[in-house]
């Protein structure tokens, strides 16, 4: 009897150890899932992490940065050309629209973009026209100038500048930043191909234009008032909602 009790106790202890091990493994799995953005106990759904974004883009495409406030500052690009000239390219200022293409010589996805610009492919943007293309690689300390010279197109400026990568907080290559010289950065992100880049930029621009459509555009407001029977001189335009201290308008009949 005593032997039986001892054996049962040992089996029970082993089972307890097994259950504890399983629970720990389960907790570890949940923790990893949570880090990947698939946690079942996620309470703060408004916060997007870099891991969330990284899991939603194709291989070879850099995830966009996670920032809650739009970045608008513009920094001119200063560096060297692949042939060793010191160069400063103006990005800020009126009438400047620049697409900064942060590319590398070793990244496979970048190859499509180097090729497209060597073929002088255009990138017209609706309502904005053709941006100036400035290709920015890391500086000579990280990239071989000869390799950049081999890939660089003749018609687009190519600058080697690690400072620019830092200034624009580029997460990886390829990465693209569209800069309006007056308004600042108006769109940024990565793409897997040149064709996809067009779509990304057009979407960024349409997103940007959308809020403008909601503003009080005078002709639209006039049209809506007219449809409601309110025309210049209508009495409702002169009624003040705050009582006797309100200014007394010149009442006229419609």
């Amino acid at each position, binding site marked *: 009897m005593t032997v039986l009790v001892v054996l049962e106790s040992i089996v029970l202890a082993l089972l307890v150890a097994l259950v504890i091990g399983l629970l720990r493994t389960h907790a570890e799995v949940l923790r990893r899932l949570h880090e990947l953005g698939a946690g079942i106990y996620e309470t703060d759904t408004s916060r997007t992490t870099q891991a969330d974004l990284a899991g939603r883009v194709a291989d070879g495409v850099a995830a966009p940065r996670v920032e809650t406030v739009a970045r608008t500052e513009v920094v001119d690009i200063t560096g060297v050309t692949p042939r060793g000239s010191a160069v400063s390219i*103006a990005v800020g200022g009126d009438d400047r629209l620049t697409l900064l293409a942060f590319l590398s010589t070793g990244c496979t996805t970048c190859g499509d973009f180097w090729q497209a610009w060597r073929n002088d492919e255009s990138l017209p943007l609706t309502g904005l026209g053709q941006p100036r293309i400035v290709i920015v690689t890391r500086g000579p300390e990280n990239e071989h100038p000869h390799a950049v010279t081999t890939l660089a197109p003749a018609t687009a400026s190519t600058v080697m500048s690690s400072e620019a990568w830092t200034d624009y907080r580029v997460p990886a290559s390829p990465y693209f930043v569209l800069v309006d010289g007056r308004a600042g950065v108006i769109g940024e992100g990565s793409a897997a191909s040149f064709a996809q880049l067009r779509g990304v930029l057009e979407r960024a621009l349409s997103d940007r234009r959308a809020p403008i459509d909601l503003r009080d555009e005078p002709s639209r407001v006039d049209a809506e008032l007219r449809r409601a029977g309110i025309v210049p001189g209508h009495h409702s335009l002169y009624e003040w909602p705050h009582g006797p201290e309100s200014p007394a308008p010149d009442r006229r009949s419609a």
Partner: protein
Amino acid sequence: MAELSGHGFAVRVPAGWEAEIYRRAPVVAPRNEASLYGADDDALHYPPIVHLSTIALPPERGDFGGGALGAMTGRDIFISLFEYERRDTANALFAYDGPPWPLSPDDFDPSTLRVALGDQTGCQRFFRHRGRAFALYVVLGSHSLRRLLVPAANDALAAIQID
């Protein structure tokens, strides 16, 4: 404000301007000719050039702005500072000693332009400075607006330091 340096130049690039300091590769490079630049034999045959401009500088352009000046509006300015060989300082063409800036609106004449484009106007000055020989070539987008543009051109020129 960006700062560039190279080939004996330093440039504090004014806001809204572009700049490049570069050297053109030689067409013919005599091997045994003594260098006037000391040990740097190649420098004799690679004239350093400084470009400063309010327009976007295309990667392929002439040393005096060919291929780029057509994009200028009436309010744009292009500056080229082209260095000749040091032995040219002995030439009467480079007799003027010291940078020729600040420039005056009266220094500009459309007939100075290598290629006449619209209302553009230009100014060219040859000079020597610290044993080096230079040609300064400045193009303004509009002769009519030269009194407005020359002060901005002078500000940019003042930002060029020749060692």
